Every structure is written in structure tokens, then in C-alpha cells.
């Protein structure tokens, strides 16, 4: 045997050994799986959105603790959306094209989601969106873990119609979510034979709420439905109480506020009124008790958990299950694997709908307590099938309504101040 052939033999042996070593751990060249986490950590929406970021990171840690995905760890790339919709668009573009993330967990407001939808669709990437929202949207690139109106608003309206009164006043902030949800509510209450006494909107961040309160006093509804968001709730509820409108006189049901915002909104002022959503921290299941305990152990015993946090948490787990099932990170394969996935979430078992990639979940109504928590007064008997386009109108009619709203607000999703 010549020296050359001996070298060739040694080289081949070395190559085999290297290949074997590579095979022992992760696949060659396969580092951690990068995932984007995009929420507002600063700015006006950070108070609601930063806790969702925490819940997402906790779920990612749980996936890593259970061995990661496909033999790889998840590496979260956290980006601040700064409560600014163009910033969301730029950030998600960067996450997809530069960081090459496998999925993005993020967005909170409808405005931010609607801004990023064309980008995730163009790049065929998945966005896991955790907030209850107005529906009227169906993207194959979004896993909607928050509820659409028929899963929280419609059952809440029915409960109030049956238990509190037949005349309603709709008060909301002047942007896409309240307008769209109130359109659904009007259609539903119209079908039930209820009376809509009035419908008024307040600009985002508005503090002068007296005109709306005057209208409520003038029309004397039996129920107030509030889609007022953010700090405007402080003067809104204060003015209601000053005008003698207590929960016993005219109950108010909010379909926006959750435990995250309540501490900053003076819950003593709001106590006795109601919230219609899908998850409350007080859900008495064993899964929820473990979830609350783990979250508070990690982030502090004084921290509270709200609906979008729970949806963000199980969204990560649903996506992880789909990746395991698809044995791939490819968006198309994961999307197919997502259909029909189920998970025992803190709010109960949730299912991904095979047709529209929204989740089946239970509806709940809670009564606000002075300590900022909610006592659950009603839970739907079964998880509710998500219907993103409310059945009262055709999809085209809803799209036209949204388009005219968008154009009327100068190509934006909120009325300009």
C-alpha cells in the first residue's frame, strides 16, 4: 500500500468520524430555531402588550425545557413595536428577511395586525396573533388564538339580553375594533328584537367623556356595552358613577378590558360592572392554577394575567405541537399540521379550526371586583366555533364596511384626532 492510499484512508476515516460526531447532536448547520416575538414594550400600548410578551417567553421556555423542537432549542428574538404601526411593519419585515425566523408571535391591536398581514402573506410566514378581535379577516398566514366576536361578544350580548334588559347603549373608542364589533352587536340585537338606544364614540386617548354620559342619561338604556379602550376608561367610569349610573342602575359590560389594565383603571370605581371575554385569571381549573403559579413564580407574585396573555401562551404550544407533528419548520407543512390541533390550555381545551385557523374556545362573563380580579358569573356550556365573518352579512358587505371606514379615516384604522 502506498503513502497516498494510506492518507486517503485516514482522510476518509476522519470524514466519517466528523460526520458521526455531527450526527450525535443537532443536524449539521442547524443551530437554534429563531422565533420572533413582536410586541410593544414601550409607548401607549405597552401597559397591555408587555405582559403578553412575558407570557410568550414563558411558553417558549417551557418548550425548550421539554427538549425544544426537532432537537433544537427555540431562540426568541424580542423586538419592540413601540406602539407604532409602521414600526411593527418594519420590525416584522426585518424578523422575516434578516433574522429568518420560523414564526412570529406578536401584535396586540387590530391596527398593528392589519398593518403586518400583507407582509406575512407576501413572505408566506406564520404570525400567531393572541388578541380577541373584531373578526372580518381571514389570512392563511395567521393563527388566531384570540377570539372573534361570535366567541365572546355575541354570547355576552345574549346573556345580558336574557338577564339584564332589552335596551342597549353602545359606547366605544373611535377606531376599527369598536366600530366593527358594534356593527356585529347591532345586527345581533336587531335579530333578538332588542332596542339600540344610542351609539357614541370617543377619540383614542379622549378625556372629555361628558357628551357620551349625557346621551346615556337621556336615552336611559338597560345595559351599556363598552368598547372604550385605554386610559379613557378612567374618566368614563368616573363620569358614569358621578351621574349616578352604578351597576345596579345600569350595568356596563366591557368587551375589551381585562385584568392587565384593571389595576391602572381604578377597579374600585368599576367594581360590579362586567367583562365579556374567554379567559379570566380566576378560572378554577387545575391547568390554570398551575399556569398562574408558574407565571407568578417567574415574574412576581403581584403580577396578574389577562385574556391575551393566556392566548399568547397556548399559541406557542399549539405552534410547537404542529411543528412536532409536521417534523418540519416549513410554513406550509406547519400550517397544515396546525389544523385540528388541540391543547389543554388554562381556559380549557382549545382546538384549531381546520377551515379558518382560529381557535375554538369557551366564552365567559366576569364581574369586576374591587381588587381588580373578576368573579366568573357565566361560562358557555361548550367551546364555541370561531366564525370570523359574522353571519349577519356577507363577506363582501363586511369588507366594504371596513374599506369605507379605512378610507374615511384617511387610510388609517382610527379616526384621526
Amino acid at each position, binding site marked *: 500500500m502506498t503513502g497516498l492510499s494510506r492518507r486517503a484512508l485516514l482522510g476518509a476515516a476522519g470524514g466519517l468520524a466528523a460526520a458521526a460526531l455531527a450526527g450525535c447532536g443537532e443536524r449539521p448547520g442547524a443551530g437554534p430555531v429563531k422565533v420572533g416575538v413582536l410586541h410593544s414594550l414601550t409607548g401607549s400600548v405597552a401597559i397591555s402588550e408587555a405582559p403578553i410578551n412575558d407570557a410568550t417567553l414563558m411558553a417558549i421556555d417551557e418548550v425548550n425545557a421539554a427538549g425544544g423542537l426537532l432537537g433544537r432549542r427555540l431562540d426568541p428574538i424580542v423586538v419592540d413595536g413601540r406602539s407604532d404601526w409602521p414600526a411593527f411593519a418594519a420590525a416584522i419585515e426585518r424578523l422575516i428577511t434578516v433574522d429568518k425566523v420560523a414564526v412570529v408571535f406578536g401584535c396586540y391591536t387590530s391596527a398593528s395586525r392589519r398593518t403586518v398581514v400583507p407582509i406575512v402573506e407576501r413572505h408566506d410566514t406564520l404570525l400567531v396573533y393572541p388578541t380577541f378581535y373584531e373578526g372580518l379577516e381571514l389570512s392563511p398566514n395567521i393563527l388566531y388564538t384570540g377570539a372573534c366576536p361570535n366567541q365572546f361578544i355575541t354570547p355576552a350580548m345574549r346573556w345580558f339580553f336574557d338577564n339584564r334588559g332589552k335596551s342597549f347603549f353602545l359606547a366605544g373608542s373611535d377606531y376599527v375594533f369598536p366600530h366593527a364589533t358594534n356593527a356585529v352587536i347591532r345586527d345581533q340585537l336587531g335579530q*333578538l328584537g332588542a332596542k339600540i338606544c344610542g351609539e357614541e364614540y370617543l377619540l383614542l386617548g379622549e378625556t372629555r367623556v361628558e357628551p357620551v354620559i349625557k346621551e346615556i342619561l337621556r336615552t336611559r338604556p338597560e345595559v351599556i356595552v363598552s368598547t372604550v379602550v385605554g386610559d379613557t376608561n378612567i374618566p368614563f367610569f368616573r363620569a358614569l358613577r358621578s351621574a349616578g349610573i352604578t351597576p345596579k342602575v345600569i350595568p356596563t359590560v366591557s368587551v375589551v378590558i381585562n385584568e392587565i389594565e384593571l389595576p391602572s383603571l381604578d377597579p374600585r370605581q368599576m367594581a360590579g360592572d362586567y367583562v365579556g371575554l374567554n379567559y379570566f385569571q380566576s378560572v378554577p381549573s387545575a391547568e390554570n392554577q398551575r399556569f398562574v403559579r408558574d407565571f407568578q413564580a417567574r415574574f412576581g407574585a403581584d403580577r396578574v394575567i389577562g385574556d391575551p396573555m393566556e392566548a399568547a401562551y397556548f399559541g406557542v404550544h399549539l405552534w410547537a405541537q404542529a411543528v412536532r407533528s409536521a417534523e418540519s419548520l416549513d410554513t406550509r407543512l406547519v400550517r397544515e399540521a396546525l389544523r385540528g390541533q388541540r391543547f389543554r390550555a388554562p381556559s380549557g381545551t382549545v382546538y384549531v379550526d381546520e377551515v379558518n385557523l382560529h381557535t375554538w374556545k369557551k366564552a365567559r362573563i366576569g364581574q369586576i371586583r374591587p381588587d381588580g380580579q373578576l368573579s366568573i358569573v357565566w361560562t358557555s356550556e*361548550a367551546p364555541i*366555533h370561531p*366564525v370570523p365573518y359574522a353571519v349577519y352579512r356577507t363577506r363582501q358587505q363586511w369588507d366594504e364596511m371596513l374599506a369605507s371606514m379605512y378610507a374615511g379615516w384617511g387610510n388609517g384604522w382610527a379616526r384621526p384626532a
Partner: protein
Amino acid sequence: MLEGLAGLGSVAAAQWLLKESTVSVWLVAALMVGGGVVLADAMIPVAARVFPAERCEALGNLVGGALAIVGTVYAIVVGFVVVVVWQSVSDAETTVARESNAIAGLERMSRGYAVPVRRQVQEAARTYLRLVIDEEWDAMAERRSSARADAALVELWNVYTDLAPADRTTPLYAESLSRLNEISDNRRLRLQATGNRIPPLMWLLVYLGAVVTMVLAYAFGVQHGWYTRMVIWILSGMLAFAVFLVAALDAPFDDRMSVEPAAFVFVQDNMAELER
């Protein structure tokens, strides 16, 4: 001996295939009958040693009488069991047909309501059908139901309980509620039927009866070459087929001779499509 083990293995494999695999039911039947015949044939030399010719001739009348009685009783028992399991499958088919007819009727009657109501009924009915066909049918084989199909039925009820008071006074409303009740009742019956099984004691009787009949047939005398073997083959083949029939028809939703969701698929395919 090896032949006997092969026959026994074949019968056991056929039983397993019937419950666990997707192999053609005809193949399983052939395996079961073939296995039974091979097993019975393999037992002939053993039987010839256990029941020598002179003893068989001496006790021929007694054994013949016993075989006639045991055979008759066993035929009655197996006949009864087959009728019961067949009736169970037949009832399940009727239940499924009634449930799917009620859904079709409900959807047709919804055309008397305004378009938004029709759209709600169709959305809920379509979801219910999809989940029953795609999710619940497989779950029923394991005696489970689909929580989501249940939820979709609740949604269907909600459409009617949420109708405006004016819509609730029409004859159409009363008739629609009657159809909804029919759907709910038949769904309950269908889910209840997933637990319909032959009791273990009855299974013991079916197997024991087959073994005793065969033993008595051997005791009648097996020393006559091909003629006897053919009789043993026919008898064992018939017994194996009877056991196969009972096993295949047992539990109306959990094997290949079970009830199919064809009626639901038909309704789903023929449901009118409204603009969404």
C-alpha cells in the same frame, strides 16, 4: 402440531386484523375460515388417538345424540347472537339515517327564514356535519364522542333560541325545533350505540360451543380418511365463519362491517350554498 399452531395463529390473527387493521374484510374472513379448517384438520391425528375406533363405535349412538343436542343448542345460540348484532347494526344505520335526514330537513326549512338566519343555520349545520364525519366517526370506534361536534350542535340550537320573538311564533319554528330534537335524540342514540357489545359471557358461550361441537364431531369417529376430513373441514369452516360473523358485526361503529357516515356525507354534499 405445527399445522395446528398455524391454524390457531391464523384464527387469532384474523380476530386482531378485524379490530385493528384496515385489511379487507373478505381477506379476514378467508383467514379466519382457513385458519379454523387448518386447525381442525391438524387435530384429526390427535383425535384419532384420544378417540380410538372401537370406543367410537361402542359409544356412537350416545355421541351422535349428544352432538345433535349440542349442535342444535349451539345453532340457536349463534343464531340469536347473529340476529342481535345484526339488529344492533341495523338500528345504528336507522339512527344515522334519521339524524342526517333531520339535518337536511332543518336546512331546507331554514330557507323560510331571512338570509342571515339561513346563513347561521348553514354555518352551524355544515360545521356539525364536518366534525361528525371527520372527527367523531373515528372517535366512536373507541367509544368516544367529539366535544366539538357537541359544541356545533349547541350552536345550531342557539340559532333558534336566539331568533326574534316574531320568528318564534311561526309553524316553521315549531317544526324546526322538532327537527332539532330529532337530531339531538338520534345523536344520543348513535353515541350510545358505540357501547353496544356482546357481553363476555356470551362470547365464552360462542367459543366454548364451537369447541364442544368440534370435540363431539371428533368423538363420533375420524378413521375414515378423506370422507371424514371433508366433514370436519365443512363443520369447522362453518363454525369459524359463524364466529367471524359475530365478531365482525359486534359493535356497530368499530370495524369494517360497521355503519358508514355516508348519509352525513350525502347531506353535506347536497347542502345549498349561500353567498358567504
